């Protein structure tokens, strides 16, 4: 047993809870899943090689626990599609009504250089918070948990078309937010 590592594991609880709440939409289920994650981590700390950060390691365990929970179907399901979220239509700010560029996508530069900056993830977090809760939830199921769209539609009981539209909106919203809040002026 390594007391420092135990301490570091416990310190990650708030981050893990934030992720779990977003995905599970149920406070007590989210707390249970995080508790399971921390216990699994403490039990498996000998397997923690220290090659990745503690948080990355814990988030990896948490993802599996959340996916198990979703597949067991023991959570509040059936996403109520917000009219605005599921709507077809124009939400790509890069174009005007006639379909012409209002602004051209910026060059975002070397992805690795961005992804190694701690501050970038704070901005990404803010952009995720800026999405409507439904969009954030469905987008994170797809990209963070890595679920296939078919499984997401089934779990949330929405049509594939609704699913694609919502994912599209989430991607466009995040793209615009990152461009404004991170890439604005940061890349020559």
């Amino acid at each position, binding site marked *: 047993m390594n007391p420092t590592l135990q301490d*570091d594991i416990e*310190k990650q609880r708030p*981050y893990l809870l934030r*992720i779990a709440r977003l995905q599970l939409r149920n406070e007590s289920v989210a707390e249970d899943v995080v508790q399971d994650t921390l216990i699994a981590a403490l039990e498996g700390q000998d397997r923690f090689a*220290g090659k*990745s*950060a*503690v*948080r*990355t390691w814990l*988030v990896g365990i948490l993802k599996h626990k959340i996916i198990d929970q979703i597949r067991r179907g023991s959570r509040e399901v059936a996403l109520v599609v917000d009219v605005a979220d599921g709507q077809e239509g124009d939400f*790509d700010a*890069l*174009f005007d009504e006639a*379909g012409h*560029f209002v602004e*051209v*996508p*910026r*060059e*975002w530069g070397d*992805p690795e250089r*961005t*992804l190694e900056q*701690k501050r*970038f*993830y704070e901005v*990404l*977090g803010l952009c*995720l918070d800026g999405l409507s809760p439904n969009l954030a939830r469905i*987008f*994170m199921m*797809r*990209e*963070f948990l*890595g679920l296939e*769209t078919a499984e997401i539609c089934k779990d949330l009981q929405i049509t*594939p078309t609704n*699913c*694609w539209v919502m*994912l*599209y909106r989430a*991607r*466009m919203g*995040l*793209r615009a937010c*990152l*461009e404004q809040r991170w890439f604005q002026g940061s890349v020559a």
Partner: protein
Amino acid sequence: MIFIRTCKEVHRLVAESMDRRAGIIERAAVRLHLAICESCRRFMRQMDFLREAIRRYPGDDGRR
């Protein structure tokens, strides 16, 4: 002119191709468009970047 798509249409197809497999004509149209359009290639790189960023989210907080 089934292979001609506007930038706006290509953006949408590129974004949706992250979540569903586009039809053969759509895919051909997108490839043709991307070959000549730097703006849409940028947009596609941005979509790829977003995927990678979320895969790594919430990032390393420096504790090892």
